[in-house]
């Protein structure tokens, strides 16, 4: 019971996050409110948004009021404005800092994770479906069908995975979420297929199957109703593992420039962009990286917890 609670908890948080990610991003993840004055601010930076009576806005790093004038400091400029023109001052925080285009890294990190998670979860589910189908067909029919399918599985396993993804993406030149999900699920079903097949073969010999056989149930019905539900249980554990693996692969793809393209942020392409200005803006790669690690860790941990008795 405790185990299920833990897994439920992680799933609950991920679902909440996927639904509400837009609401917790304080700024636009793609367009900066003021590119010039807010660029490359380190983490925990504070800035002020001055709104004027004519509707104009000014982003300043610091200001002070003296003799009905407001003296303000910007990144490169400083100046003054009469106080009666001012309507409102809003303090804004950049807890993860801003990137070199003045975008809030926190918003981008939150927003970017959704693609990684959606790709990870959907790909592993598709991979599970493919794996279970192939494993079940292989285990059910046996003989030549089994031999051929297992050889195909071996070939897929021996393929350099990342290489194949890169090749297919580079040649088809499509980098939509959908195509990435399809490719990644086509490359991750092999382990599940083997597992389900082995379970199928094992369960075929079990006594309860003999029992239903003797009742006179057709072999197809036995396979679907009695063997399959039992055969997929051990394979379920590998879903979170594959999810973690796919999230890593997706981030590598984005990192190499083959994934979802900027300006849409993903964790991978944020780190890739950050690598270009590593010395001046050291904080850029840190947060997306921590979030990838945390997500993959959570997935690995789920499967770890499920394996424990």
């Amino acid at each position, binding site marked *: 019971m405790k185990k299920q609670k833990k897994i439920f908890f992680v799933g609950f948080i991920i679902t909440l996050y996927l639904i509400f990610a837009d609401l917790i991003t304080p700024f636009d993840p793609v367009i900066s409110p003021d590119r010039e004055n807010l660029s490359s601010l380190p983490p925990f930076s504070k800035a002020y948004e001055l709104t004027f009576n004519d509707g104009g806005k000014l982003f300043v790093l610091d200001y002070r009021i003296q003799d009905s004038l407001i003296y303000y400091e910007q990144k490169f400029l400083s100046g003054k404005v009469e106080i009666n023109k001012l309507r409102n001052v809003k303090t804004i925080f950049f807890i993860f800092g801003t990137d070199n285009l003045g975008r809030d890294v926190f918003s981008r990190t939150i927003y970017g994770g959704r693609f990684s998670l959606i790709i990870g979860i959907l790909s592993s589910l598709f991979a599970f479906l493919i794996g279970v189908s192939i494993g079940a067909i292989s285990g059910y029919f046996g003989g030549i069908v089994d031999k051929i399918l297992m*050889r195909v599985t071996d070939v897929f396993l021996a393929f*350099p995975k990342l290489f194949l993804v*890169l090749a297919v993406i580079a040649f088809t030149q499509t980098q939509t979420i959908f195509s990435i999900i399809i490719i990644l699920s086509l490359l991750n079903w092999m382990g599940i297929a083997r597992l389900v097949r082995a379970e199928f073969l094992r369960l075929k010999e079990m006594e309860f199957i003999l029992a239903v056989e003797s009742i006179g149930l057709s072999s197809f019905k036995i396979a679907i109703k009695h063997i399959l539900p039992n055969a997929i249980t051990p394979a379920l554990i590998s879903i979170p593992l594959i999810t973690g693996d796919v999230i890593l692969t997706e981030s*590598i793809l984005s990192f190499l420039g083959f994934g979802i393209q900027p300006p849409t942020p993903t964790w991978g392409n944020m780190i890739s962009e950050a690598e270009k200005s590593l010395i001046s803006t050291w904080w850029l790669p840190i947060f997306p990286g921590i979030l990838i690690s*945390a997500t993959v860790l959570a997935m690995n941990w789920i499967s770890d917890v499920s394996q424990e008795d």
Partner: protein
Amino acid sequence: MGFVLKRLINSIFLSFGIATIVFFLIRLLPDVSFSDIYLNPRLSEDVIQRIRASYGLDKPVLIQFLNWLKEIITGNFGFSFIYRKPVIDCIIESFAPTLTIGIPAFIFSFGFGILIGVQSARNQGKLLERTTHSLLLVLYSLPTFWLGIILILLFSYTLELFPPSGLHSLNFNEMSLIEKIYDTILHIFLPAITLGTAPMAAIARFTRNTMLKVLSQTYIKTAKAKGLDEKIIFHRHALPNALLPVVTLFGLYLPIFFAGSVVVEEIFSIPGIGKLTVDSIFQRDYPLIVGVTLFVSFIVIVGNLISDILYSILDPRIRLK
């Protein structure tokens, strides 16, 4: 011997399967290698056909496939478009840098992995062991490219201990032998750690788990009941049996270290197999793509073969199955 032979034949079939898939995959994808030529308005249809014919592209796909297979078997992988030399030469040249990173990473991950795993099993349940166990899961979950960047940030830019990229310093040729070795070690350190960390964590966790499984066996209890010394039980009875499955990891992890890591070589600018992979794909260099894929798959297959053979030598029961 029959077991090894069977595995060997299996591997050959596997290589053949991969070669077939690679060939047809490349042919199925849109033919863009000559797209620049096709765009040239001065070229007549006739000339384009002759160019295609010179590459054997005018024949039926099946004939092309058989011709290609014949060339592959005789060791001719074709000619790289971008490097303008035989594909096999490109691969051999890139293999050396990959090995320079791969071998230290291999030693690092297996050395530390097994050491940590065995020590964890011995101290199971203690606070330090539990912390290590969780920490290993964290290390296992770190994305390689991020780890690389963080290490560069920390050790190259902040502490200035190791150079951030390349395999040699610029003045490498003027150095004495000892300086050369020192320089290479400095350059290898960060990439090898980056490459080896995740496998190290996996190996450590795996070793710990197999070790614990062995320690709970009845023959260990028997040894304890006989009154044998704990140390002797641990080293002579438990350790060899627990390391058996770990040894098979040698083969399975071979590709990680020796097939070139795209990510590590990209981050640290190492001209190895991984970089060759990315280049060939970016430039759509068909012969090179096919060559590299076959090479990498070959390493995977050799790795599997090695792990099978090692296992059958160490555990003869396997051969009977």
